[in-house]
């Protein structure tokens, strides 16, 4: 057997271009459906577990999928915003604990989630290094963000400008990183958390500036009308919250009208969940309340339908490729007729020659199987990233 394998190896190595093409073709035919299946299974597991652990999501009317992906994965698509007052209304109803989320801004591409400390308790997030955020302008980083960007507690994290050409847009805010979360293997590893109010500061709804009542700020005063002081453009606005200037930060307007992306509602029990959902039913309602698992299952049904279609198409392509590979083998056998005759003249039996050709085929199929297994392993290893990139972001 070793002798035949040696001869087969020599043949395959000598015709390496043909061998490589055959191996790659067969490897791809084996890999694509298996890799797809692995990816779909990972998608199901990843999406379903995250969704199942989130009971209810309340958001403005719009695409349910967009809203759920935004809340669960901080996806790039921005669903319509809702008012913070709705979160207070849910909390006051006593039916559920409300965790508001404002997911709009980014810091060098990493999403900033504005929320409350309840979110950390709800997701079981633990500080691994440093401490929890305690005041306006503080933030904590997910483990992967910190590792990738080399962040340590007390480093600064600067939010990204929304639009370089919008002079009235959100200005970058330099935030103080107080802690780094322990890795969880969930999307929370890839975000930066700040207090909800901090994200409103980024938006410009709250701000801090020079105290115009102080004599050194006189140059910034445009007019005084009773107790009101009107500043001019020279008034220094703070782009960082420090212990010295934190007292100057203040909100304009009613926080209940401030924007948030969604509310995670943690109902007391199933009855409370049903009652809460009932409140947001009807076409006229400005909000939607969703069970994420149902939305994700809808998505998975679509993914599975697509997978079936793709696998069916691949079966056809696979059959064609295998037929072509068979044809290549048969044609090469015709071309090798003289070689076979030589082997017979020397004394090789037909069985020995058939075994030699079989060894060559086994070599090609074996190499293709190994390659397909490597591809599948790589897909399984990179599956979470691929999913995030193609399905969520």
């Amino acid at each position, binding site marked *: 057997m070793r*002798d*035949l394998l*040696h*001869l087969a190896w*020599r*043949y395959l*190595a*000598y*015709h390496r271009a043909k061998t490589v093409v055959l191996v790659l073709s067969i490897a791809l035919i084996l890999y694509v459906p298996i890799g797809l299946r692995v990816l779909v299974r990972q998608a199901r597991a990843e999406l379903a577990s995250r969704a199942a652990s989130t009971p209810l999501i309340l958001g403005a009317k719009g695409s349910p999928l967009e809203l759920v992906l935004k809340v669960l994965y901080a996806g790039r698509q921005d669903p319509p915003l809702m008012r913070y007052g709705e979160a207070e209304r849910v909390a006051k109803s006593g039916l559920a604990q409300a965790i508001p989320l404002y997911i709009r801004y980014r810091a060098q591409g990493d999403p900033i989630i504005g929320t409350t400390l309840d979110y950390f308790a709800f997701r079981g997030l633990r500080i691994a290094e440093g401490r929890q955020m305690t005041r306006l302008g503080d933030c904590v980083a997910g483990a992967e963000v910190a590792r990738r960007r080399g962040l340590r507690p007390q480093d600064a994290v600067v939010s990204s400008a929304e639009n370089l050409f919008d002079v009235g847009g959100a200005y970058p805010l330099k935030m103080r990183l107080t802690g780094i979360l322990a890795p969880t293997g969930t999307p929370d590893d890839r975000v930066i958390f700040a207090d909800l109010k901090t994200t409103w500061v980024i938006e410009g709804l709250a701000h801090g500036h020079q105290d115009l009542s102080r004599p050194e700020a006189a140059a910034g005063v445009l007019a005084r009308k009773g107790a009101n002081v009107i500043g001019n453009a020279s008034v220094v606005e703070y782009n960082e919250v420090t212990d010295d200037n934190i007292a100057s930060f203040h909100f304009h307007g009613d926080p209940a009208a401030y924007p948030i992306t969604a509310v995670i509602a943690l109902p007391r029990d199933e009855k409370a969940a049903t009652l809460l959902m009932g409140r947001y039913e009807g076409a006229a309602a400005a909000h939607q309340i969703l069970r994420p698992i149902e939305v994700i299952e809808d998505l998975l049904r679509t993914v599975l339908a697509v997978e079936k279609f793709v696998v069916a198409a691949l079966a056809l392509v696979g059959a064609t490729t295998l037929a072509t590979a068979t044809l290549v083998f048969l044609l090469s056998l015709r071309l090798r007729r003289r*070689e076979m005759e*030589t*082997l*017979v*003249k*020397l*004394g*090789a*039996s037909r069985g*020995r020659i058939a075994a030699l050709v079989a060894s060559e085929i086994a070599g090609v199929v074996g190499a293709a199987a190994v390659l397909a297994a490597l591809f599948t392993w790589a897909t399984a290893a990179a599956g979470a990233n691929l999913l995030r990139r193609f399905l969520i972001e």
Partner: protein
Amino acid sequence: MIRICDLDFAYPNGPFRLRLPELQLPRGTHAAFIGPSGSGKTTLLFLLGGVLTPRAGHIWAGELEITALEEASRRDFRLRRIGMVFQEFELIEYLTVRDNILLPYRLCRRLRLNGAVVRRAEALAEKVALGDKLDRFVDCLSFGERQRVGLCRALVIEPELVLADEPTAGLDPASKALVVEALLGYARSSGATLVMVTHDGDLLPHFDQVIDLGSFQEAKP
């Protein structure tokens, strides 16, 4: 001893017919088959080697009747005991010189490929000036070098019968001398029987027996 008795052979689709009432080649003989093209020299060589089977008649190699053997046994006999040198080399293009020489050992389960065999192959290659080309593919070799590879492949099994079909055809004088010297040298040193088909009259003095298949008369050199 090679012995032929009442041999009758014809190809299935052709007018050619070879009839040979009797022929004897004692063990250790160096015999040459001569005759015009189409007289059946190569056919007789292939009949002796068991590559072809006659319609009638008998061929013996020593006590063994080749024509009575099953096909599998005939192949096995050919692989292990007959060294065949072909006019068109019959080398395998994807194998190196070394692998081509050792090919019989890869094809026959009863031949054991070991270090001694490899050394013998290398020594043979050295003898015919191929020692530095053992790891080259045969398509990189000259005409004469390829024939020498075929020769080494025939001799590596240390056969008791060597059948060579015009091994010097088309070779330059240097290659011809190397091939003839290697064949005769092996036959002399091992006591093997050598049968060579040739058109080269200059070679005939080297042979004990010259058989003219054109007139089918046994002639003395």
